[in-house]
């Protein structure tokens, strides 16, 4: 408990300086049962043009992490650590400074496009409002730019569509509008919180492609939050695996999927359905219920569900470390494969995810 889970030693030479540096961020929510550690000492960096994935089950703290990074944690939450962006710490910035960064510096796409749009305002007006108030455009320019943005995100007949209300659009179209709103003021970092979860599988791919295109065109960094490993495979360079508010494994996406070391990551990988399995094969699941950390906890949070747990796992907190070093002696670097486990698995077993990722691609 005395040291952070990961020490950022600065970017290795040759890599661009990070746009966004999240260090030791914790978000604690008061509950009737005691303080809930929704996000627990999470650190990562995001460089321009880079895509980082955050994976975990529902309740693992992914969405709360995104809200905290945006400086929009619920009023009751207590946040510690720092989120550095463009010379500001978004956790301690004044409301005024934060507003200057939100939308034009850091922006967010939400999970459910049915609820993330104002239901009583035409989508063109919603876009124009943001462009006028945050992008400094006048009324007319904002209206024209709104139509242009709708075209950019792939809305057919954008001039007519701008006059539609959200409920007149399909789910995929709505998510495109949400994305247009998020990128309206040219943010340098985009947090996409389960952007495809509420959508049809066929539409998922289009939305992920759109996000990838926008990232390539603008060079913004993107945090792609999802419960679905297949979504991040092949679309992110690095990966954070979260469990009960903590990052339990991190590293280059291909390496984490190819050689998962944390038993939780391995279990997630095993639960991805595989094409070559005969139909009606029982899907592998992660045994037990997802944990949330309430009050003071001791030991690894995955231990109660972990087939490899030993006495030490219930006594000591594992810290993120290079899995090749014995017993977490070497603090892991941000961009290297690191796992928070005393008894990591041997690696391998990501075939299902690669298959599924192929299909989604």
């Amino acid at each position: 408990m005395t040291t952070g889970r990961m020490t950022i030693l600065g970017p290795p030479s040759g890599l661009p300086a990070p746009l966004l540096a999240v260090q030791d961020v914790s978000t604690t929510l008061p509950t009737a049962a005691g303080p809930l550690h929704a996000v627990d000492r999470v650190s990562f960096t995001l460089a321009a043009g880079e895509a980082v994935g955050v994976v975990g089950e529902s309740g693992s703290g992914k969405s709360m992490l995104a809200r905290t990074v945006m400086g929009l944690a619920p009023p009751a939450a207590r946040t510690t650590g720092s989120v550095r962006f463009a010379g500001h710490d978004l956790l301690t910035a004044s409301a005024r400074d934060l507003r200057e960064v939100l939308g034009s510096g850091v922006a967010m796409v939400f999970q459910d496009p049915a609820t993330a749009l104002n239901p009583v305002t035409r989508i063109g007006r919603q876009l124009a409002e943001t462009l006028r108030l945050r992008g400094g455009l006048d009324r007319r320019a904002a209206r024209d730019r709104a139509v242009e943005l709708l075209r950019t995100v792939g809305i057919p007949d954008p001039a007519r569509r701008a006059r539609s209300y959200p409920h007149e659009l399909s789910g995929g179209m709505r998510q495109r509008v949400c994305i247009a709103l998020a990128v309206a003021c040219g943010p340098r970092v985009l947090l996409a919180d389960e952007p495809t979860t509420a959508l049809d599988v066929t539409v998922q791919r289009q939305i992920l492609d759109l996000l990838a295109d926008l990232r390539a065109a603008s060079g913004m960094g993107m945090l792609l939050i999802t419960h679905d490993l297949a979504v991040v495979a092949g679309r992110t360079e690095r990966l954070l695996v979260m469990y009960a508010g903590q990052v339990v494994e991190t590293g280059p996406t291909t390496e984490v999927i190819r050689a998962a070391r944390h038993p939780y990551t391995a279990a997630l990988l095993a639960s991805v359905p595989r094409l070559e399995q005969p139909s009606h094969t029982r899907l592998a699941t992660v045994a037990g219920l997802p944990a949330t950390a309430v009050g003071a906890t001791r030991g690894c949070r995955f231990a109660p569900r972990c087939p490899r747990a030993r006495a030490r796992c219930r006594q000591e907190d594992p810290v993120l470390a290079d899995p090749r070093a014995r017993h977490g002696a070497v603090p892991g670097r941000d961009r290297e494969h690191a796992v928070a486990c005393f008894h990591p698995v041997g690696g391998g077993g990501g075939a299902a995810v690669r298959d599924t990722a192929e299909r989604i691609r």
Partner: protein
Amino acid sequence: MSGRRGGTVLRLVLPQLARTAAVLLLVGFGAAFLLDLAPGDPAFALLGEQATAEQIAATHRALHLDDPFLTRYWTWMSGVVRGDFGTSYLTGEPVMASVAARLEVTGELVLLALAGALAVSVPIGVLTAHRADGRADRAWSLVSSGLIATPPFVLALFLAYVLALKVGGLPATGWAAWADGPGANLRHAALPAATLALALVPTYSRMLRADMIATLQEDHILAARSRGLPVRRILFRHALRPSSFSLVTLTGISIGQLISGAVVVEVLFALPGLGQLVVTSVTAKDVPVVQGVVMFLAVVYCAAGAVTDVLYGCLDPRVRVRPT
């Protein structure tokens, strides 16, 4: 296309009109029937206690008071259909004219009270929802509970005492028509309108607060914040409109209540409004006037309901009825 749209409008409006007509018919009958059951004779009110039997009989004949109830109702109703609401037993004036003359006062009071109540309640509701359970919110919850518990006539007397007698500047009783100058008119309307409005503010503001708190939890509010939009804009442009359904419903209902509430206020502040007219007409059993006022109130109720329905559509495009 336009022909089809016209047909649609007719299809929407006709049933509404039919319902309104049925309501008016029932209300008119009910009012006439209740007054017929009540004891008393308008002839006495007209002629005084010392009237002779012949005088009374002559008045009865002149006013058709000896006809059976249904005959009188039929005569009255057929007049109404032609737009003739009859004449007052007491003054001989056409009912329409005396209602219209009084309406100027009551209508102004009601509209001022509604506008004032909304102007105060909306900012209070929005701000107490924004900082729910904050100091201002808790203080207002205390004050509004107190206001709800205070009967209007107590409030009226208190306001008249403080603002008219102690502070001064506002007349405690009486009325000045708009034609006498807007300043005088508004000064006379201020206290009675404030009395009516203060009774509405607690319910209006707390209803809006509850709906606002629910709206502020929604994703689209978080999304608006994530785009860095100003707080005030989010509160008043993004959250207020979807939160105002209950308030609109309540406002529609309270138009009717306000006219009834005006009876008490008009008597207290000695105002020549509809309320006073009803009180004197009921006492004198001036049936045509009472029926005229009752019919007018029924029309107002129905119209308020229809306007509320239209407003829902303006507030939320999802409830708009579209041609199919």
